[in-house]
């Protein structure tokens, strides 16, 4: 299991290419940063910038391309490129998603849903084992945002993640916005979801904003990371901290990328909530 001391139990930001130059020029006191490794695998200028960032900040690699839930074999070339980047950067954490995106050698550029069955569990567990062996470290696996449920799913999503963590020793990345979005879209109970995740396995939390779209006259929430974290997600975050303790937290923002200052402000808000939670837990432990 990844110890909570590896990354500070503070709030960092997802670093996107539009902010890299400003961050390198101003070096703001953000506790840690997370990047998508797929944007840096070609080396070149982007890779050099990331190495410069790594000199001053703890960095986590948050992959979107391993396709852990693909029915076929993992893309060995992609895994090799990830390993090269991990060796070069020595990130504090490496994480991926409970989803698939590759089939028949084609990449669909989305974190697509898997049915939660025993077959899928065996496939994902085998892939997580392969990744952890290749990288010689445990990874975290993130809960997806869902827009549908498969009729033949036989396992609940948090139970699936708990069993995956038990079988493989991987940690979990609890995306609170994804829980909120999925709860709305497919009708599960967000509080019960938090309660079903194994607290000891959760080593990171994600926060983000979402869009509200119309689908045939009914609201559907889209996990677009394109706006501030909304109040109900902050509320769920407080509950998550009560359950999991003060774990490193990340604010993601991808679409409609704001000024860096705005994103740092969101992280400071999360940092304040984290500090309150840590303080409360200190009191509880002392009592």
């Amino acid at each position: 299991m990844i110890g909570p001391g590896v990354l500070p139990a503070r709030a960092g930001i997802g670093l996107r290419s539009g902010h890299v130059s400003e961050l390198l020029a101003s070096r703001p006191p953000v506790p840690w940063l997370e990047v998508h490794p797929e944007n840096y695998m070609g080396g070149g200028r982007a890779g050099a910038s990331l190495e410069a960032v790594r000199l001053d900040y703890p960095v986590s690699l948050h992959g979107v391309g391993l396709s852990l839930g693909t029915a076929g074999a993992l893309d060995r070339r992609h895994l090799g490129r990830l390993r090269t980047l991990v060796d070069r950067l020595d990130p504090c954490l490496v994480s991926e998603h409970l989803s698939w995106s590759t089939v028949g050698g084609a990449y669909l550029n989305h974190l697509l849903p898997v049915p939660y069955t025993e077959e899928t569990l065996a496939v994902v567990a085998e892939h997580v084992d392969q990744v952890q062996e290749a990288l010689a470290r445990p990874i975290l696996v993130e809960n997806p945002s869902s827009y549908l449920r498969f009729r033949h799913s036989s396992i609940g999503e948090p139970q699936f993640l708990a069993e995956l963590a038990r079988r493989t020793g991987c940690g979990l990345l609890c995306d609170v916005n994804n829980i909120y979005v999925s709860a709305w879209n497919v009708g599960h109970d967000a509080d019960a979801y938090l309660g079903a995740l194994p607290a000891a396995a959760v080593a990171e939390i994600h926060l983000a904003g979402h869009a509200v779209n119309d689908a045939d006259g009914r609201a559907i929430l889209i996990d677009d990371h394109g706006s501030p974290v909304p109040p109900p997600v902050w509320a769920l975050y407080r509950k998550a901290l009560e359950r999991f303790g003060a774990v490193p937290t990340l604010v993601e923002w991808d679409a409609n990328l704001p000024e860096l200052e705005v994103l740092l402000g969101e992280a400071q808000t999360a940092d304040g909530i984290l500090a309150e939670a840590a303080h409360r837990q200190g009191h509880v432990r002392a009592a």
Partner: protein
Amino acid sequence: MFALRDVQDLFREGLLGELSPALIDLVEDDGLDPRARLAVYRHHVLTTLTATLEAAFPVVCRLVDSRFFAYAADAFIRQILPAGPCLDEYGAAFPDFLATFEACRQLTYLPDVARLEWAIHRASQAPAGEPLDAAQLARVAPADMTRLRFVPNAGLAYLASPWPVDAIWRAHRDESQALPDLYAGSVRLEISPSAEGVRIRSLHRESFAFRDALARGNTLAEAVESVPYLDLTGAIRSILDDNIFDTFTMPTEEDA
């Protein structure tokens, strides 16, 4: 019950084409039509890949307007998906696709503008070239010189076009200049990464043929053969000055 692979095959078909009854039947119907739920995924895949192509081909997008570009991109994406998750590498086949896309066949210069944009896109991500080791080159025995092969910088590309594509690209890069004379004549361009960004240079016929032949992996002798009237000493000196080749490989026994 459907096996995971069957689900994923149905999903891929449904995202890029018609939603099959089998796929719709897999999705829980809780009052919101499964087709509306599947449309969320389809919309994301198509819009994000279109945005990826727009980022790599901004001038092509301006030349045809964004609505036509989205139409062409949609057709391309349904034909050729990314081979992997590094999206900076997606779009290499888009220029050839445009050359066969009936709806823009009258824009005969468009595929070459797209080829130039792809070369610029790749060069912009590559590191600037380092000087080739001239001292090491000087130590190569004269008998071996003709069998040397040069290894090009990542991001080096050569493009010959009957259209003034560099002028078209510059005119539309910032939308501030008028379209140049389309019949200004052919160009032979070298696109390479530089410390300042990307360097686009217009080359003479001989120099273009020589450098292009070397960049394609030909030996020095083969490259010279394709350019009968070349000042070889000057040509080698200039490729050293321009930092376009990272290194060279010595001939092996098999080459001998």
